[in-house]
C-alpha cells in the first residue's frame, strides 16, 4: 500500500467536499486547467450537465486548490469522474488521496462498488491502485476508447456480480435512456 501524501514542502494536503458555490468554482477551475488547458477538451464536454447532480471532492496543498474529483451516485455503485490534479502538484499521489476520500464517502453511504471509466493509456495507474476491468480484455471490442473498471469499497468483501452499462452513464441525468455525447469524445 502506497503511503498517501500528508504534506508537500511543509504545506498540509487536505481534502474536503464542496459545500458552497465558491468551493465548486475551485473544483471547476482545477478541471478547466487540466482538461481544457492541457487536454484541449471543449467547454461543453467538460461541463456536461452532471456537475449539479454530483458530489465534488477538492484536494488542497495549504490553501491552494490543486486537485478534484466528482462522484455521481447510482443505485448499485458510485462513479468517480473527472479526476484532475494540477500539473505541478502531480507525483504526490494526490489522485489517490482524492479517490480514498471517495471510497470512504461511498462506505458511509452503504455503497459497495466504485466504478470508473478510464482511457486505455491510464489503465496501469488504476490497476496499481487495485482496480480491475469490468469486462475482460478479450470480450471488449478493439475500437473502444474507454475502459470500465471497478473496485470494492470494502476490500474484504468481494464485489457482487453486477455489471454497470458502459455507455448509459455518460449521458445527461434526465436523459439516461437516450443517446448522449459520442463515446469518442469522452474524456473520463
Amino acid at each position, binding site marked *: 500500500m502506497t503511503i498517501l501524501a500528508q504534506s508537500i514542502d511543509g504545506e498540509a494536503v487536505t481534502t474536503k467536499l464542496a459545500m458552497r458555490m465558491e468551493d465548486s*468554482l*475551485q473544483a*471547476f*477551475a*482545477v*478541471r*478547466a*486547467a*487540466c482538461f*481544457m*488547458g*492541457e487536454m*484541449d477538451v*471543449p*467547454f*461543453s464536454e*467538460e*461541463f456536461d450537465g452532471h456537475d449539479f447532480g454530483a458530489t465534488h471532492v477538492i484536494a488542497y496543498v495549504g*490553501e*491552494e*486548490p490543486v486537485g478534484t474529483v466528482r462522484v455521481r451516485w447510482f443505485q448499485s455503485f458510485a462513479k468517480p469522474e473527472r479526476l484532475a490534479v*494540477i*500539473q*505541478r502538484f502531480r507525483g504526490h499521489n494526490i489522485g489517490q488521496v482524492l479517490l480514498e476520500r471517495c471510497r470512504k464517502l461511498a462506505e458511509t453511504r452503504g455503497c459497495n462498488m466504485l466504478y470508473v471509466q478510464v482511457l486505455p493509456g491510464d489503465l496501469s495507474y488504476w490497476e496499481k491502485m487495485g482496480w480491475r476491468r469490468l469486462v475482460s480484455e478479450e470480450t471488449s471490442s478493439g475500437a473502444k476508447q474507454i475502459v470500465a473498471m471497478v473496485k470494492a469499497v470494502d476490500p474484504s468483501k468481494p464485489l457482487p456480480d453486477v455489471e454497470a452499462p458502459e455507455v448509459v452513464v455518460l449521458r445527461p441525468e434526465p436523459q439516461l435512456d437516450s443517446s448522449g455525447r459520442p463515446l469518442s469524445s469522452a474524456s473520463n
Partner: protein
Amino acid sequence: MQCYALRAAVYMGEQHCPYWEEFDGNDYTATHLILYVDGEPAASMRLRWFASFAKFERAVVLKRYRSLGLFLPFVEWAKDMALKKGYTKAYLHSQRRLWGIMERAGFHKVDDRIFHFSDHEYGALVCDLTAPDCQVPTVFTDPMILNRPEDRLDMPGILEQSMERGASNPHAGWNNDRRAN
C-alpha cells in the same frame, strides 16, 4: 462560469498561475466579455472601470481557437464598449512577449517601467480611444438609457418595456404599515 473556465484553462493550465492569484477578488467588480465560436466559449476578457480609463485584464483565447485571429477583433469589441460608456482611454498590463500584438491593437507603452507579478514581466500600455459616433452617456442622459444592459446602451432594454405597466407602487401598502419613516 464560462469565463472562469477559460481563464483557468489558460492561466492555471498553461501558465501555471496559482488559483488565488488568478481569481484575485476583483471578478465581482468587473465586466466580463465572452466570445463564442460555434456556441463554444472561446475567449474572455475582464474590464474594470476607473475614473479616467478602462482597464482591460485577463484577456485569453483558448488554445484551440488561437489560430483564428480572434484576439484583435476581441480587443476592438472591448474598446468599443469602453467608448460607448464614455471612456477615452483604455489601459492594460501586458506580458512582455505580447507587446507586439498589443501595439497592433493600437496600444503604446505608458513609460519604460517593467514590473513583474505572477511569474511574468509586464509593461503598462495605453490606447486613446477615438471619439465615438454615438452619444456618450452623462448624468443628463435619458435615465432609461442608463438602465439598459451594459453592452447594449443603444437598444431599448427590458425596463423600458416595464414602463407600460405604469407606476402602481405595489409595495406602497407594505411600506406604510411597517415602517416608521
